[in-house]
């Protein structure tokens, strides 16, 4: 993307100090986005909550004395205490340690899904939208196909197979393979309107290749909707992975994930609620905050938005 500020403040030399006080302050694009994002109180709170949760999942294990594994000196079925704030499981695992590991696995899978699916989906959509014609038709029909079989059903049918295995990145890749299509639709829609604009025409006139136009001009200008879609996909992926693990087709013991923790404590909802509620509430919190952040980003990244509150 070309930088409009270059022409404004480039070679003309720095304005005198008093003139600077009169002219409005220059703001970079990121700064503008942050200013607009900040107006959404709920989105800002969500962002900090999510950062705390991420820290809990990825830094927590370094600070907490127990991990998710079975230890001989952990009592079985202990009630919450100072040593084990959320109690322990029957086989002697500390629940806080399990929560950290579970959230870590969930987030790791979901973020990988989002990155992979967004990369595939936005390239697919941008190429289809830019080239148009029969290429577009064929590419979007293929994307439609990926939507015919319900997402979780498709992932479970393949992920449940022992040949595929259940390492976290395999699960992530399978989920990504079935969730890129909606993103490609979004990006195609944006690109369809972008490609008619003058800067693409200019790039073409200067002899830019299709690859250069797609990668350097179209995708950066479609960044807003892509980022929003990628954010919301993280929440979807968390739910799919948790469901998969809950039905024993995802992460398998001795490793742990939030879905598996719910499954282990399924019958304990009323007898040992401290085993049942934390993993479920953690999933809800992660998805809720991500959805709020996505909504805030949608407004913040929309260039038609002005700084004036409507």
């Amino acid at each position, binding site marked *: 993307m070309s930088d409009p500020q270059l022409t404004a403040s480039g070679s003309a030399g720095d304005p005198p100090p008093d003139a600077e006080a009169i002219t409005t302050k220059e703001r970079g694009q990121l700064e503008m986005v942050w200013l607009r994002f900040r107006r959404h109180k709920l989105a800002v709170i969500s962002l900090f909550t999510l950062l705390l949760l991420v820290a809990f999942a990825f830094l927590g294990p370094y600070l907490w004395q127990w991990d998710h594994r079975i230890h001989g000196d952990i009592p079985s079925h202990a009630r919450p205490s100072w040593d084990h704030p959320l109690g322990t499981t029957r086989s002697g695992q500390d629940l806080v340690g399990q929560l950290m590991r579970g959230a870590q696995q969930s987030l790791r899978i979901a973020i990988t899904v989002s990155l992979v699916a967004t990369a595939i989906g936005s390239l697919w959509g941008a190429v289809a939208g830019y080239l148009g014609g029969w290429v577009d038709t064929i590419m979007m029909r293929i994307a439609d196909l990926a939507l015919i*079989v319900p997402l979780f059903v498709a992932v479970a049918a393949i992920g449940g197979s022992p040949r595929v295995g259940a390492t976290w990145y395999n699960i992530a890749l399978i989920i990504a393979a079935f969730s890129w299509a909606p993103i490609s639709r979004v990006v195609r829609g944006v690109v369809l309107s972008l490609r008619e604009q003058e800067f693409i025409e200019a790039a073409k006139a200067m002899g830019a290749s299709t690859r250069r136009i797609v990668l350097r001009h179209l995708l950066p200008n479609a960044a807003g909707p892509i980022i929003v879609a990628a954010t919301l996909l993280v*929440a979807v992926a968390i739910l799919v992975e948790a469901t998969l693990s809950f039905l024993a087709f995802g992460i398998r013991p001795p490793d742990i994930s939030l879905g598996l923790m719910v499954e282990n404590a399924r019958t304990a909802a009323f007898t040992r609620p401290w085993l049942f509620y934390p993993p479920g509430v953690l999933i809800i919190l992660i998805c809720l905050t991500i959805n709020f952040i996505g909504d805030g980003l949608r407004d913040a990244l929309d260039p038609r938005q002005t700084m004036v509150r409507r």
Partner: protein
Amino acid sequence: MFVFIVRRLLWAIPILIAASLLAFLLIDISGDPLSELREDPNIPQESIAAEEERLYLDQERHVRYQLWVTGSAVEFSSTGVGVVHGDGDIGLLRGEFGPSVRGEVYQIGEEIGERFLLTLRLIGVAMVFALGLAILSGVISAIRQYSKVDYVLTFIGFLALAMPTFWLAALLQRGGVWSNEELGTNLATYGDSTSPHIAQDFTPLENVADIAAHLFLPTVALMLTAYAQWSRYQRASMLEVLNSDYVRLARAKGLPNRVVMRRHALRTALIPLTSVVAVGIAGLIDGVVVIESIFQWRGLGTFFISAINERDAYALMGWLMLSGVIVIVANLIADLLYAVLDPRIRYE
């Protein structure tokens, strides 16, 4: 109009073919149904070979696909072109789903047939209730935009979207058990309905009541996600209509608010919902797998889970194909409805 319908129906054929190819390849490539047999050293080679022949695993992949769809296949080999016929137990077009890895006693087609209506009942009821509630709360939210009611309903929507279906279902199921034990209520917490030999003493009315009782908790758990998506959509669509010029005109004419809402705003605002509901069907199929396993229904959801655990390839393919067909048909109906409901759409 007629041309439009015919063209739309014809267009469904290549999509169905592509869906069958997808369902077949996904399952056929991702796993070997006989892997457990092969790993067992005590099983003689001959019985593995016999199983391979029974399951058509001795055929090449493209031949197997043709067999699975039509029941017979054209084979190209070095000696020329030949025709391979199935044993009469395979071929979707003949109404056969293929042999099960679980042996000849297990008939995939019969199982799907027995369980289909049960699952359809659950999905249908959840869909109707989700839709009704979504329209209601979407319209209320839109009319009272930025009021307390709107914020509460919007927050419930967000919460429902973030809520894992399996967690809520497990909570409801255990909650039902707990309330039966502690509060003496009589909630049905597992099974699809009372087993037939008890139910045969029921009058038809009692039977319906029993089925409804067993539907209650699973429906609540299943409809939540669909409700959340649809109500947000309904709110946005209603807001757009309420801010449109023709609604302003209707008000300016002096029509009573009730008539403006019912006759002018709501009718238009419902049109876009048809296609969103069609897309939402896929989500309900996803949810039914989880719900049935938690409430121990003998429906298609648990059939799917057992098929995965048994690596029953043809059962899985049949299942994927069936859910694909449901999604395709739902989209087809939505497209046709759209054409009927929205006069702005041209049929040519």
